[in-house]
């Protein structure tokens, strides 16, 4: 099978599905083409943890036999994908990006992996991640056994974390879509840095059974793809109640963007100060234009602000205490210090000392934050903010101190929507909206719990009008 034309690797799921159903290409040939690209380009980016060549080809062969008998299972059938190495795949290595878990193997696959397998989707690779999903707070992009994940738009820039491998792999066309996870920023940030579309679902909508536990009350699993529509289709296949996940919302998700509120009737909350004061000046033109495009599509823009609360401290206390409990054994016997990033190791060790009253205080503040959002969503349907306030940082700079000499505003407006939205379990989508000095810029849309169709539909209308999500890096 000859390699595909370069632009073909960047097709949407609907485009691949049409070719598979018409048998213009077989699932096996499609899988071979992506396996070849994963092996050729993946190592240059440090985006791949494990290529599942034989498994993928076997599964693709099964799909071809089904397609031949016209047993259609939906738009994802026969399409290769990658999963963050935080998700268990039965009898295959799952190392969580950390040296302590080298060679770790589980007997059962994560619920999400099994659901996608039933839909006929072809798992082709495990993708790299920041060690232990960065729960202790890390200083360098190199905090992973696979090395620093490089940004396909500029190899000396970082892809973001902790789902850097999934975002970089989709951006580079190594895979049509990927599954990532977010506790606080791990889908939205790498998608923004790599210029791909990512969805963080409502807490509990997607089962985490078989995923590495970092923070039981904040971990979410979501799709990373080329378009908002693709994210909706993938979420439909992934979501649903699961008795194996105590945090399951026991809700399914039907992808019906046509029934969501259309942009002309949508009230979008935003803060001009987020763009004009908080964002790096290089990002401002793209963000202004994105807001203007949404306005021109009929959205009603309303200036709003989050109440002044210690969002980052609250999220950090909850994540820290839960992560320290989840990895208590590593902290107790000193293996935590085998992590690649020293700051992450000491961060987790220090988190083990968080007093119970602080953890409970943080959870009580979370109640206030949830109440705040309930009020805010009385005024608006969706919140708009920059997905990140600066573009991808250089790969060897300390990322916890980036950007240097930042004079940007850290509070006010919707500046803290990242930790705030995660604390409240709200869905969010990262949407590419331009470039600054050759690096992607993105905005994020956030809405009420279980209203994913609203943000997906809004992003789909935006992506019909723009082509930022169609841009691809030169590799």
């Amino acid at each position, binding site marked *: 099978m000859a390699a595909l034309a370069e632009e073909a690797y960047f097709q949407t799921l609907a485009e691949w599905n049409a070719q598979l159903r018409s048998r213009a290409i077989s699932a096996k040939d499609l899988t071979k083409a992506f396996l070849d690209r994963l092996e050729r380009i993946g190592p240059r980016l440090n985006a791949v943890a494990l290529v599942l060549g034989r498994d993928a080809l076997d599964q693709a062969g099964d799909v071809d036999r089904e397609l031949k008998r016209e047993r259609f299972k939906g738009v994802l059938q026969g399409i290769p994908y990658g999963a963050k190495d935080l998700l268990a795949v039965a009898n295959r290595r799952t190392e969580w990006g950390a040296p302590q878990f080298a060679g770790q193997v589980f007997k059962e696959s994560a619920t999400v992996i099994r659901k996608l397998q039933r839909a006929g989707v072809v798992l082709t690779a495990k993708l790299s991640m920041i060690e232990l999903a960065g729960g202790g707070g890390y200083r360098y992009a190199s905090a992973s056994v696979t090395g620093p994940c490089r940004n396909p738009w500029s190899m000396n820039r970082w892809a973001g974390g902790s789902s850097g491998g999934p975002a970089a792999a989709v951006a580079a066309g190594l895979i049509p879509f990927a599954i990532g996870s977010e506790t606080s920023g791990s889908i939205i940030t790498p998608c923004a840095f790599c210029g791909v579309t990512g969805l963080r679902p*409502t*807490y*509990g909508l997607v089962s985490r059974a078989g995923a590495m536990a970092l923070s*039981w*009350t*904040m971990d979410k699993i979501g799709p990373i793809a080329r378009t908002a529509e693709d994210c909706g289709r993938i979420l439909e296949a992934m979501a649903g109640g699961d008795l194996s996940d105590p*945090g399951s*919302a026991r*809700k399914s998700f039907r992808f019906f963007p046509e029934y969501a509120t259309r942009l002309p009737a949508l009230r979008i909350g935003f803060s001009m100060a987020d763009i004009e004061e908080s964002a790096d000046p290089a990002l401002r033109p793209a963000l202004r234009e994105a807001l203007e495009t949404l306005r021109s599509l009929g959205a009603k823009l309303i200036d709003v602000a989050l109440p002044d*609360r*210690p969002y*980052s*401290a*609250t999220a*950090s*206390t909850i994540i*820290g205490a839960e992560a320290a409990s989840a990895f208590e054994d590593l902290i107790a016997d000193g293996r935590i*210090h085998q992590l690649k990033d*020293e*700051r992450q190791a*000491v*961060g987790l*060790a*220090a*988190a083990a*000392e*968080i*007093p119970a009253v*602080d953890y*409970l*205080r*943080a*959870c*009580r*503040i*979370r*109640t*206030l934050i*949830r109440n705040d959002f309930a009020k805010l969503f009385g005024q608006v349907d969706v919140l708009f903010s920059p997905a990140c306030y600066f573009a991808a940082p250089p790969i060897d700079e300390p990322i916890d101190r980036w950007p240097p000499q930042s004079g940007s505003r850290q509070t006010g407006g919707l500046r803290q929507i990242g930790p705030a939205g995660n604390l*409240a*379990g709200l869905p969010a989508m990262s949407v590419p909206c331009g470039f600054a000095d050759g690096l992607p810029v993105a905005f994020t849309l956030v809405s009420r*719990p*279980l209203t994913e169709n609203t943000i997906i539909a809004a992003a789909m209308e935006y992506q019909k009008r723009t082509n930022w999500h169609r841009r691809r890096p030169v590799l």
Partner: protein
Amino acid sequence: MKFTPPTVISRRGLGSLLVASPVAAQAVQERSQKAIEDARQARSAQSAQLKSVQLAREIEPSFRFEP
């Protein structure tokens, strides 16, 4: 097949390693101690931020989103 010869350490080299390693180990330990102290200070600052929020006694903790 080509075999790599075992590494040869001269008596002088070995001596300097033996002398240097406790110093190096101490430096690593001091650096780690400093990093732990920094992390504790950061936690302490976060704790102070949490305590600055007025919480009525009846406000219960939210452990997770519940639909």
